[in-house]
């Protein structure tokens, strides 16, 4: 039995099957992204003043990706228009261009992601100097008039068993602070970071501030025992980055889905043009609607996560 309304529209709705299907699918997508955006906005608005990261994203790369996606949108329109004009060769060119632009978009995204995973925030231990003069790195857990409970560091944020010292034997020198930058070397003996040192992690939140822009970056050598905690700027870093990775990765998955569909219609799926050109044109129109939606989502992702 032949499936009805694959080419000809239904009389009552005025739509062919695939078009109705894609609009219903896009409606569900609006709800999915709408929920994520609203969650992000609630968290952003609810965060206390000055405690939400600003200027953490690479604006030139984000802008480049926006231009790439907008351009892929017009090449998609031109691919569909070529089929309407019965010019299959032109369709192949524009569909191929769309495919290339989509792949470049993902490539740029990968560059952005990889930088996040090589960028580290390193919290340093306080330094405790014992009466004998031997320095031991670690963290003071509690301090009374008579005793100091101390967690000695074993390197790279690991702690040994707590030790109790008489207060008279202990001299605490607070060094602490946070080192932020790109990781150059990480071994059992040394950690080398190309970046800067600040007093506390809150100082790293606003990279648009004058202090952040004027800060000089240098090669900082650390002994693993100095390190209390060391973590990259992945989704585990804080709420903002968790939202950033959730939303942009979901969008990137949609781009990947688009790439598979665009490739199929550019390659093996294009055989349908020779047997059912109208139906094939409709398929390209439907995949185009999906691709424009991916562009539409990015239009909100870029300013929300990169600029505001």
């Amino acid at each position, binding site marked *: 039995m032949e499936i009805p309304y694959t080419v000809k529209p239904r009389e009552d709705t005025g739509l062919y099957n695939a078009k109705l299907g894609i609009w219903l699918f896009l409606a569900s997508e609006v709800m999915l992204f709408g929920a994520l955006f609203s969650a992000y906005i609630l968290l952003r608005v609810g965060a206390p003043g000055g405690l939400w990261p600003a200027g953490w994203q690479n604006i030139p790369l984000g802008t480049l990706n926006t231009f790439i996606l907008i*351009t892929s949108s017009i090449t998609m329109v031109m691919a569909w228009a070529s089929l309407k*004009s019965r010019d299959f060769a032109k369709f192949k060119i524009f569909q191929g261009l769309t495919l290339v632009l989509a792949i470049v978009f993902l490539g740029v995204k990968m560059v952005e992601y990889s930088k996040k995973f090589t960028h580290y925030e390193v919290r340093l231990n306080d330094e405790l100097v014992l009466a004998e003069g031997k320095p031991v790195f670690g963290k003071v857990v509690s301090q009374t008039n008579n005793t100091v409970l101390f967690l000695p560091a074993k390197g790279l944020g690991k702690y040994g068993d707590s030790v109790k010292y008489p207060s008279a034997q202990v001299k605490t020198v607070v060094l602490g602070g946070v080192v932020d930058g790109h990781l150059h070397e990480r071994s059992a003996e040394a950690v080398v970071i190309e970046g800067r040192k600040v007093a506390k992690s809150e100082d790293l939140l606003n990279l648009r501030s004058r202090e952040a822009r004027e800060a000089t970056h240098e090669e900082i050598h650390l002994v693993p025992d100095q390190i209390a905690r060391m973590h990259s700027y992945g989704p585990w870093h804080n709420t903002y980055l968790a939202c950033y990775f959730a939303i942009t990765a979901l969008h990137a998955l949609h781009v990947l889905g688009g790439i598979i569909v665009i490739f199929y219609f550019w390659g093996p799926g294009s055989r349908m043009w020779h047997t059912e050109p109208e139906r094939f044109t409709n398929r390209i129109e439907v995949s185009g609607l999906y691709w424009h939606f991916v562009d539409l989502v990015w239009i909100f992702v*870029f300013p929300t996560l990169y600029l505001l």
Partner: protein
Amino acid sequence: MSHDAHSSPGHAEAPAKPVNLRKAFYVFGSQLLITAMIVTAYYLPWGQTTVNMVFTIVLALCQAALVLCFSMHFITEKKFIYGVALFTAIFLSAMLYLILTAGSASGHLHVNHVS
């Protein structure tokens, strides 16, 4: 028309319907311009972040409207699609309303602060 097009058996029953791409290029140009404006606004010394936020959001909404109305042909769609869009808007608004009121009913929003 290409050789491939002429060689396709289905063409006898499907005549060519050339599409006027002028509108699509206007939309493309406008999108590029709006993106440039949004990014420029980011670097401008507004003084107040709220002004920048409102400006950016309004421009992003304009850009989204262009894509929806012209690239996705929403303004010339069938009534049924408007029904689907209306249902989505109502459903999404109701969901947002529930989330917002649930947050205020419990006193305040529980935000996982930046570590």
